[in-house]
């Protein structure tokens, strides 16, 4: 399936906060209660539609364990968007956000859009981090914020799609150099601003894609 743009995302955050589950929920619309430790990096992809344009998201899901940190750092390069995830039921994953953010800022291109995500919102009874705290952190560091649940799928679509919208706006504003692939954006063959043959318009998400570009 052809796309107008391809955006590369990276998902980062402490181990066990639900990075792989967020990806699985977004690409496959399912939840896996027990997920193996991610070793290295895994990939996912899905087509979405923004402003009537087909946009492919290529998502890099990284290992959260400290041991993988140096390898993960090399994956920030060439990412247009990042989902920085913490677990609302584990305070320490929130406390580590500053380190993650420093890493991300240092190793990515300066225009990378970062979305802060407080995951596991379904476990409200075990909550250790208030929603307001997440909002405050995001405001302070200029991030977009959302609480999600990979289990119930609440806000998962929105998290990925809102990030894409922000990147798309930056492209429209001419902030991104879209000809440099190191910025995490690739132009596809489908360029026309409005393509009548496309199913649906606006911010509706397309189906999970398995086709080739």
């Amino acid at each position, binding site marked *: 399936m052809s796309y107008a743009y391809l955006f590369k995302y990276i998902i980062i955050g402490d181990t066990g906060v639900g990075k792989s589950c967020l990806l699985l929920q977004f690409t496959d619309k399912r939840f896996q209660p027990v997920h193996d430790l991610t*070793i290295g990096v895994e*990939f996912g992809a899905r087509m979405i539609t923004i402003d009537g344009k087909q946009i*492919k998201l*290529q998502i890099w899901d990284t290992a959260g364990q400290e041991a993988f940190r140096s390898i993960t750092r*090399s994956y920030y390069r060439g990412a247009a968007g990042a989902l920085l995830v913490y677990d609302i039921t584990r305070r320490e994953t929130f406390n580590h956000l500053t380190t993650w953010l420093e890493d991300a800022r240092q190793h990515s291109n300066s225009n990378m859009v970062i979305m802060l995500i407080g995951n596991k919102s379904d476990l409200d009874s075990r909550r250790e981090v208030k929603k307001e705290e997440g909002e405050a952190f995001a405001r302070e560091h200029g991030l977009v914020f959302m609480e999600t649940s990979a289990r119930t799928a609440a806000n998962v679509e929105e998290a990925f799609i809102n990030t894409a919208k922000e990147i798309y706006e930056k492209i429209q504003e001419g902030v991104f150099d879209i000809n440099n*692939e190191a910025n995490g954006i690739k132009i596809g063959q489908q360029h026309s601003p409005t393509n009548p043959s496309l199913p649906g318009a606006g911010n509706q998400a397309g189906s999970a894609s*398995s086709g080739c570009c």
Partner: protein
Amino acid sequence: MSNMFSITNIKNRFISVIAPDIPPLPSAHNHQLHRGNISGAASNYQLRMAHQQKKPDKFAYARPRFLQLLTIDELRASADHNVRPIIVPRDTNLLPWGTGYAECVNSGKSEWNEDQAAFARQVLSDPTHTHPDLPYTYFGIFDGHAGYGAALAASHQFHHILHEKLVDCLELLLSRESDNSNQESVFPHPSQFHRRVSKDELIIGALESAFFNMDSLLAQDRDRYRDAGGCTACVALFINGKLFVANAGDSRAVLSQRKISIACVEKKTTSTAIVPATSSEAGADIQEVFAVPFSFDHTPETERHRLLTVARLKPHLMEKQYAAMEYAKRPHMKDLGQRILCRQGTMKGWTYKTLTREDLRMPVVTGEGKRSRLLGTLGVTRGFGDHDLLAINTGTQIKPYLTPQPEVVIRDLSKIVSIPDENNEDGDYGILVMATDGLWDVSENDAVARTVFQTLAKYPTEKHRYTMVAQELVARARGKINDSGHWRLADSKAAATVDDISVIVIPVYQYYKEHVEWEKKYAELQQKRQSVICPSATEAREDEIFLVNGVEKAHVEEEHEDDEEEEVVVEVNRQQAQATIDLEEERHSNIESIKEVVELVDNELTEAISALYAADSTEDDKNSEKDSTVDTPEKTNKSTQQQQQHHRNRNRKDKR
């Protein structure tokens, strides 16, 4: 994808892959420079490539199956040349015994990662059910060039070919009583050509002929499928308690080992006596880490002698374009008539000769080390494929200089006497690292061995510790990209590799353990068979074991001395094999008459073997250690006694 295959693109890519240090030339420019038969050859080449485009791929491009990169999106992401992600299996249980694997794509010299890897766990089963099934494990690593087809085909097909070859000599491989004992007593007349062939030679033969068959298969496929390019092949085979490594090309297998030297052991014991708490630390500090090569690189430089012999015996292959000569410096027209330092043909030393016009031809082998080239084009001289490969600029056929013939190295795991402990959990069995030249170009063997054990120490209990080793090795060889877009090694700022990198990390000890367990099961079943046939035999056997228990220690020590020499054993322990055969034969004489019993036992055996195979790699270490310590003496006991018996036989024979 189609636009990528425009002729010039292909050609440029093809040239840069084969000879990366030679800048790609636009073909038109090329024609103007060299008129006559050269441009003719080039246009033939273009015609052929144009024709090639219409043919399909035999196998759709994919990464090794155990990586589970199933969609084109995942494939594309994994081939990101700007980031070069390190890919490891998402499910480490797919590889046997926690075997580690990691890979990384090149920095842009070819669209896809042209390395491939494969493994297979198979069983050789006897159709007549007289022998127990023989399990084996195979790993292969293939470094492709001038396309991904050859390596991809090898990763899909090689193990099937190898399996067929092993099945071909099945009855000889499985037999324990074989006809050798009879042959030994009757010395054939020399004119009868009666040669005894060992099991090792059969396995080497299976590997060698499989290499040749794989190459022929690629030759046959040229008519129907797109040009596959070529690839190296490095294959490890664990069978019958032995490790066989067969290699053709410049991929490499290296055994990483560590040893506590005797002086250090003393130190360790004294420190244990004084301060027991630090003993393990002291032990860890003085462990000596070293690397033993298990393959030899085949490059124009290392194979210079063979290549020049080919050129000398078949001068027409050079098509009057090349010289079977080597010059200390490149001769020029202005040097004609002057003396020049050179070596001719297969000479090792250098001598002077007067420069003639013929000396201005390009030497068959040029350059040194990693940059050495055959016919100015190819940097690797053994492997599969390359059937249509032509030399840059001259269009001369390269394939006649190449061969799929592997060199095979053997290690008899049952000859290693080492009981792994917490300081050295792999014992003297070591860790086998198989990797493409992406790793070896920038890492010394010993440095790799150090990284192996450093990383294992960091992850003492993790199931994926060997994967971490593979990942670390790839990460170091790939290095980091700097601001100007060059890949640099982290520690030295030297250039990192821009090539594809693939690494397999194999804990060898597990295959010894596996074999011991298999032997034990086999012996138990033999015993069962016997007790069914004649119940008194069981008692006799117990006596036998008890009787030799004292001998066992001496025997082990004796073997340990052999081991200390640290040689790669390329020889069979014929005595042991023969002795086992003798004993087995006695037992077998009764068996044949009672077919039902045999069948019953065989069913059990099949179950036992499948149980063995199903055994989780994460099985309790304590248990397995206990097993191995119990098993080893029992095994050696048997062989010691049998050896004695064999000596007696031999003496009798010699007298005759």
